């Protein structure tokens, strides 16, 4: 069945379909990431590596 579908539809269809899905997903994701008012949220996330625990200096201070 799968073989039949692939042989009849032509192999080029599959990568083209994957590529289109990829591009659409990227476009949607970009639009979502840059939605209005989201900057402070991502700003906080960007600092996560810096503030995950207290440093030794902070503890001593």
């Amino acid at each position, binding site marked *: 069945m*799968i*073989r039949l579908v*692939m*042989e009849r539809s032509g*192999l*080029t269809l*599959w*990568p083209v379909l*994957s*590529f289109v899905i*990829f591009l659409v*997903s*990227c476009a949607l*994701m*970009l639009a*979502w*990431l*840059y939605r209005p008012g*989201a900057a402070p*949220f*991502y*700003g906080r*996330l*960007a*600092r*996560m*590596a*810096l503030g*995950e*625990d*207290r440093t*030794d200096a902070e503890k001593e201070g």
Partner: protein
Amino acid sequence: MLRIKYDDKITRMFLIACLVWGVLGMSAGLWLALELASWKFNLGLPYISFGRLRPLHTNAVIFAFGGNAIFCGVYYSTQRLLKARMFSDVLSRIHFWAWQAIILVGGIGFLFGITQGKEYAELEWSLDLVLALVWVVFAINFFGTVARRREKHLYVALWFYIGTIITIAVLHIVNGLAIPVSLTKSYPVYAGVQDALVQWWYGHNAVGFFLTTPFLGLMYYFVPKAAERPVYSYRLSVMHFWALVFLYIWAGPHHLHYTALPDWAQDLGMVFSVMLLAPSWGGMLNGLLTLRGAWHKLRTDPILKFFAASITFYGMATFEGPLMSIKSVNALSHYTEWTIGHVHSGAIGWVGLLVFGMIYWLVPRMWRTPLHSQALANAHFWTALVGILFYVVSMWIAGITQGLMWKEFTNEGVLAYPNFLEIVTKIIPLYWLRAFGGSLYLGGLLVMVYNVARTIRSAPAFQDEEAMVPEAPAVPAHAAPVAQYWHAVLEGRPFALAILTTVVIAIGGIVEMVPTFLIESNVPTITAVKPYTPLELEGRDIYVREGCYNCHSQMVRPFRDEVARYGDYSKPGEFVYDHPFQWGSKRTGPDLHRIGGKYNNLWHLRHLDDPRLTSPGSIMPAYRFLLESKLDLSLTPNKIRVMRQLGVPYAKEVETECRTQAQTQARSIAADLEKDGVKGMADKEVIALIAYLQRLGTDIKWRETGPAAASIQAPAPAPAVAATATTSTHPSKGAGI
């Protein structure tokens, strides 16, 4: 608030293991570089001949040096990002010791020729199995920690770790499927074209998901720490992750351009490789721009120097990769030293420098004492950088020189350099330069080991780091995070993230592999192609054992120069019984797919005894021991049985008669040698290897119309071994010559 202790001991253990294996793996690499500059460095010892030592080098650097560095950084950062101690100290220790044991046993095995013969996947089935179990231990420990975390949001570095854990498991299992012959021997379930596709799907993504995604995760954690700056753009890191994991998995076929792989798969590999430039450079810019405002520190801080140079090499390598995957560029670059230069700019530039920066950052924190010498760390940086430049530039020049000389024709329309050795000898000075670059890089590493050792020696008594974390109970895996947006919800649901990652990475592999396996027109059957005789099969196993594929390809591409030099281009149907395929990825020596019948048996014997006798100037190691060691036929019936299970059409009786058949064919070759005065070879390993080499590329009658027809001798007839004839479909691939 709650006070918890992190398990830093495991970080320290992986850190030290990383340094130890780094020295060993890179020393092996330097020795290999010397072996190419002068064959005498093979020392006449089978254990360190190029073909056996190279898998040790690649595995030690990728999985031992790189692997221990990954685990070191992952164990350190995961605990801190999740505000939780690792799920199980016992699992951490099992992971550590089992990983070292696999590397040690596997590495020793390579020196004894125990290999599956597939690049970067050389470990035999028994160790593959242990490796898979250890990976599961790591995954349980990691996801267990995630499940009891005290930080709801998963930082982007953790996504890259999740992507790595899942994808490496999938790659390792799918590519490693094999049927055992004995504890130390197996045959992969795939053959020929399919095996090549699966192998390079694995091989490319071993680079992608073992040498890229985990190190990107480490970059997103350690670069902000070292620069004391937040990640430049978290949004970009979200795009970087999803685009990278989706696109990377498609790119494998660019390792097989112009081979017998179907054209549609090659084109897919090329297009997706070029697209890969976008997320790669997005990540590279994100890393470099994280250093904004901290550039002045580069003058004095060796850690930031290492990070900045590492990310720059990431950018260079990820520009060069897509460039080389364009078919017209690949026609020149493939099989040449250019590939080696490219790989090393990624491996020792991107990965190596990032690891060094991370270790210099970690050591003072893990041992609670300042680094012994900043000056030595700076010296290490410059030594390593100059070493890489010598290495990469010499290989670029060597590769382009090789490619151009292979393809050069005279005005009369004949090859300008018909003698392959003329091209080999031209680039030997560049091999010396490469060895010089490698020794600088290794020297820098030794300086680092000294610096770290002195730091550790001066360390006071200390305890593992403690942290104050929220007293709230660990977040259950199913709990939704506070953030209300859809992707943010996903970022707080690790198991949903893991499943989505699995789906994303599966798409490329499925789209490329399923049609190649199911549609017969991808690999047209050739009736004349028959299974190897038992002796040829034994010879092929010796070919695999000695790692001949590390220097010789078995794939004549449909180019005018290759057909003129080697013979008719290779057809997909010629490899249907090749478990594993042996197309190779490098031509230090010439292609061997049409070697069968080109020379007589005596020539092969003398060539293997001492390559300089037949090929003056050759840099190939001598395989004199093959003329002395006895051919072991004890496993031959098992091998035939496994081959039958894999669908190779041997008649049932071959299983019982294979030893007799092998001995009969061996006596026939030995009798031919005796006519030339060479006696006592009938039971030696060299006879099996000669039988295999004489069989290569002779199934189809290309010589009747081939360019080298005049100088060809017909190979000795082989015993009939096929049980059934296959149906005939002529290969339809365009020659393009």
